[in-house]
């Protein structure tokens, strides 16, 4: 022991004995040095791996391993906060069953092969399929968890090199209705406001959004805002079941599934009737239109729908609203006319700031585009939009649903800037990509639901999925599972862990997960968040971007993918940024992004744009106009008269219960990551079904007892949760979808919104029996 150490220990020992003297009866522990101190960890910034909130985390690294996480105090999103998933996220990297090498199916068995060999096979098979069945027989299916470079090279590879629009991402199942909602109302995607609204507003209206569990860090900010402004700030919960959010809210209104459409119209009815319309704003910045009605549910193969909208005047809109008096809507929705008036009064009060928040409740909806439109209608009528503390805000569920799928445009009809149908947009993309413009096909092919139906039918023969788990998440799962198992289908899966999707794979490519590679995400509030490679991936696990580049080069596209391995993430991002030049969508430069937890676009002259369409904050808005919704040619946003129409399948005598699916705070999506985190698995080990307390009593079902749920598509046995954290109203049940051993999507229906093509996971009919 050196002298310094001796002195330290002596001093500590004396401190201990002094303390012992002060607190009699307590034995103090011996002085021992335990490992290295906290400062021995190196801390690196990253966006959290899980939901779309985009919390900033600091990852602690020791000995080359990620060993700790803390909330990043300098992140304007999370301000040092985290949730139980994010704060334990690094543990998933060390699950024992991580894929560390590639596997190829030989004689019905998965055998390990060097990754270079697996990439050869993928390229050869892809080429052979194109040669035999045409370029639209191959497909790439990605994810809102793809980093921006992953999605960008995927788009360039499929649309610019192979020349097929068979590119989709799982955000179709999660954000498509938000996108079409934004496009139809404002002509441009993504929210006008930002999270800073939380500390400015006085009212939070949560539309079908269990924020306490799904977006806990933002919900904590809402609670804090209320705590600091007692009596003034209100949290209003509009939901189809009672949740943790409902119990924390000032008011909770439980409505019959699908009737949010009617409630939103009733609120508008009251605002118009009470003359609370902000006429100054309305006359200058708003048009009214109507579209097609009775638009179907997309249940049949090759379903087609194209909306047609036409302008109507205020009188016609008033006539439309006359079907939605509070009394009429009480009958449809089950929410009392008084409560509807109360809600309308909050929105209508000119002296009250209001934000609306929603996520899957409104997006996974067979009228998802419509309900997004209808909530915008409310904000447009009262002019509470694009202002600090006032505005509608669509939350996302994946870390880069916005950044990658929506901004890069990894959807069949999209390009990084614009759509494939527009020749100018194609020419613009082709120029940056350095490919002949004829290569980019002008016609969209399959959206996600149609893509998996095409795989089942055999129109698609080869599909490569990355960072997603469709064999757990597709609605009416059995059809798509069986489709993928058919003869002469070739499935390539890039993932970090075994999942139900890797179980159907012909080739498994081991993926570098999150901070094992460099990348960028984009969160719900237009914030781009860069992260470095912080730890090494295990074995031969490879970054998804690099996997695509390797396969593209093997197929002869070396000129299009020239990026050196040392700098390819930065190079790819800087190339991508060229697609978004201009004040409406400029992205921050890579080197700036490295310095900050995240930066919001439009990033103009070194500044973020916090509130779009408002002259005061958005440099793209015409001077002197006050507001300009520049996504639309005439600068005006659109109020769309959208009616209430019933769900695709509603309870009946044979299947009397509504089934709603969703998440719990402990797990994220299909649980392939969170179930590998010990704390989370021990807290929430298996899927369950929430049953209404009265229903359970009537049927003799007690908490923990097994019950059978059956729909027209499948059946499942689950443990009942009675009086748990969520309590659905009578004749409805809720089941989380994280458990791969309890595949609730075998029961769900593949009905989708005809405009967004996003399926409705929140509504179908089941029967419930004691086992």
């Amino acid at each position: 022991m050196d002298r310094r150490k001796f002195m330290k220990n002596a001093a500590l020992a004396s401190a201990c004995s002094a303390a012992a003297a002060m607190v009699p009866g307590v034995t103090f522990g011996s002085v021992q040095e335990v490992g290295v101190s906290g400062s021995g960890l190196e801390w690196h910034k990253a966006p959290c791996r899980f939901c779309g909130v985009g919390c900033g985390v600091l990852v602690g690294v020791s000995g080359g391993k990620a060993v700790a996480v803390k909330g990043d105090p300098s992140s304007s999103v999370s301000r040092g906060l985290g949730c139980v998933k994010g704060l334990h996220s690094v543990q998933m990297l060390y699950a024992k069953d991580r894929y560390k090498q590639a596997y190829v199916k030989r004689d019905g068995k998965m055998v390990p092969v060097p990754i270079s060999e697996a990439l050869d096979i993928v390229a050869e098979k892809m080429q052979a399929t194109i040669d035999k069945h045409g370029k639209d027989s191959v497909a790439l299916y990605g994810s809102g968890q793809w980093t921006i470079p992953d999605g960008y090279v995927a788009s360039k590879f499929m649309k610019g090199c192979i020349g097929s629009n068979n590119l989709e991402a799982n955000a179709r199942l999660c954000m498509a209705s938000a996108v079409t909602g934004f496009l139809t109302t404002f002509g441009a995607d993504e929210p006008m406001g930002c999270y800073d609204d939380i500390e400015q507003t006085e009212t939070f209206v949560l539309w079908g959004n269990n924020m306490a569990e799904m977006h806990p860090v933002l919900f904590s900010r809402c609670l804090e805002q209320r705590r600091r402004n007692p009596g003034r700030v209100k949290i209003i919960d509009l939901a189809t079941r009672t949740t943790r959010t409902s119990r924390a809210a000032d008011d909770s209104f439980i409505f019959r599934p699908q009737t949010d459409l009617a409630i939103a119209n009733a609120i508008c009815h009251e605002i118009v009737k009470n003359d609370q319309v902000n006429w100054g704003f309305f006359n200058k910045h708003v048009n009214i239109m109507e579209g097609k009605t009775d638009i179907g549910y997309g249940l049949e193969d090759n379903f087609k729908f194209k909306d047609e909208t036409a302008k109507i005047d205020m009188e016609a809109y008033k006539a439309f609203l006359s079907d939605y008096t509070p009394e009429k809507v009480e009958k449809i929705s089950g929410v009392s006319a008084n409560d509807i008036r109360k809600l309308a009064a909050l929105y209508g009060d000119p002296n009250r700031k209001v934000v609306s928040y929603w996520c899957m409740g409104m997006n996974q909806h067979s009228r998802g585009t419509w309900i997004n439109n209808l909530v915008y209608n409310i904000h447009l009528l009262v002019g509470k939009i694009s202002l600090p503390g006032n505005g509608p805000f669509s939350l996302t569920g994946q870390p880069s649903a916005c950044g990658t799928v929506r901004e890069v445009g990894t959807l069949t009809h999209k390009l990084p800037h614009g759509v494939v149908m527009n020749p100018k947009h194609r020419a613009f993309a082709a120029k940056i990509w350095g490919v002949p413009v004829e290569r980019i096909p002008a016609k969209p092919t399959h959206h996600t639901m149609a893509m998996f139906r095409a795989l089942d039918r055999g129109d698609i023969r080869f599909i490569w999925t990355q960072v997603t788990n469709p064999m757990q998440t597709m609605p009416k799962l059995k059809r798509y599972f069986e489709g993928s198992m058919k003869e002469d289908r070739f499935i390539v899966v890039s993932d970090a862990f075994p999942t139900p999707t890797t179980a159907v794979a012909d080739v498994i490519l081991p993926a570098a997960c999150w901070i094992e590679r460099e990348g960028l995400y984009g969160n719900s509030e237009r914030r781009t968040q860069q992260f470095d490679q912080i730890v090494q991936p295990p074995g031969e696990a490879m970054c998804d971007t690099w996997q695509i580049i390797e396969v593209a080069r093997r197929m002869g596209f070396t000129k299009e993918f020239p990026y050196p391995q040392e700098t390819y993430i930065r190079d790819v991002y800087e190339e991508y940024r060229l697609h978004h030049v201009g004040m409406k969508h400029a992205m921050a430069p890579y080197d700036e992004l490295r310095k900050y937890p995240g930066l919001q676009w439009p990033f103009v002259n070194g500044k973020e744009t916090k509130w779009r369409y408002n002259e005061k904050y958005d440099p793209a808005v015409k001077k002197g106009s006050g507001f300009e919704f520049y996504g639309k040619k005439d600068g005006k946003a659109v109020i769309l008269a959208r009616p209430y129409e019933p769900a695709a399948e509603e309870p009946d005598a044979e299947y009397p219960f509504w089934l709603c699916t969703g998440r719990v705070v402990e797990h994220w999506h299909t649980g392939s990551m969170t179930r590998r985190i010990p704390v989370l698995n021990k807290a929430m080990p298996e899927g369950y079904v929430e049953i209404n307390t009265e229903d359970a009593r009537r049927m003799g079902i007690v908490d923990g007892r097994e019950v059978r749920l059956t729909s027209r598509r499948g059946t499942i046995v689950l443990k009942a949760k009675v009086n748990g954290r969520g309590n659905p109203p009578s004749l409805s049940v809720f089941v989380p979808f994280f458990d791969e051993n309890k595949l609730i999507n075998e029961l769900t229906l593949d009905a989708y919104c005809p405009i967004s093509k996003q399926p409705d996971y929140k509504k179908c009919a089941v029967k419930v029996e004691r086992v």
Partner: protein
Amino acid sequence: MSAKQASPLTGVIILAGFIAIGMTVLFTVRGKLQAQDQEAHAGHHPSWATAHAASHAVVEIVVPPRTAQPAFESVPRPGAKVRTLREFYSRRAYAGAPPIIPHAVEDDGVINDDCLSCHQDGGYVPEYNAYTPVTPHPEMGNCRQCHVEQIVEGLFVATEWIQPALPKRGQQSIPGGPLQIPHPLQFRENCLACHAGPQAVVEIRSSHPERENCLQCHVVDQNVPPFKSLIDTRMELADVEK
């Protein structure tokens, strides 16, 4: 879980009385400082920004008024279970991780009130013959956002996760100097919650909790994150809007 008693103070009444007088003075001073601080921030400064401030060694402790006496005024009952560092760390995935909930709790959808009824002020619980740990951040309202019960033992798949080395105790920058704080202060800016009172972890109990202004002598031995904060820009915008 509501059973809770103030612990007996017999035998140290004189000492406790002395501390109580000191406390009154200290609380008054702190209250004034807080009032000034809140004025300066015009009320729209979320309290977790204080975590940020604290991690840069600025003292700003904002804790709701206590309903009972501060826990450190009481001494543990003879024979009561003492919290050890081993137990403390056994409830955390790594040093600094949110602790799990080690006892049965209702999963009834209520997010905070039930937890705070015991964990805000602490106190002796006969059922466990132990003292309730006190949360260092009672202002955070959504407890189960970070803290979860463990209802099964098993894992979904085995893990090769290695728990990192624990913070080194007894660090001084010069011999005889005050001990350094080996952990960040984020959400742990109230030192006394863990380091004082009968519920404190025995190995890390302060010998002089009555001095209260801990950060006067003890500083965080911690890297400062090398990233710029945008919170200042946000505040400017907020001011413009007012």
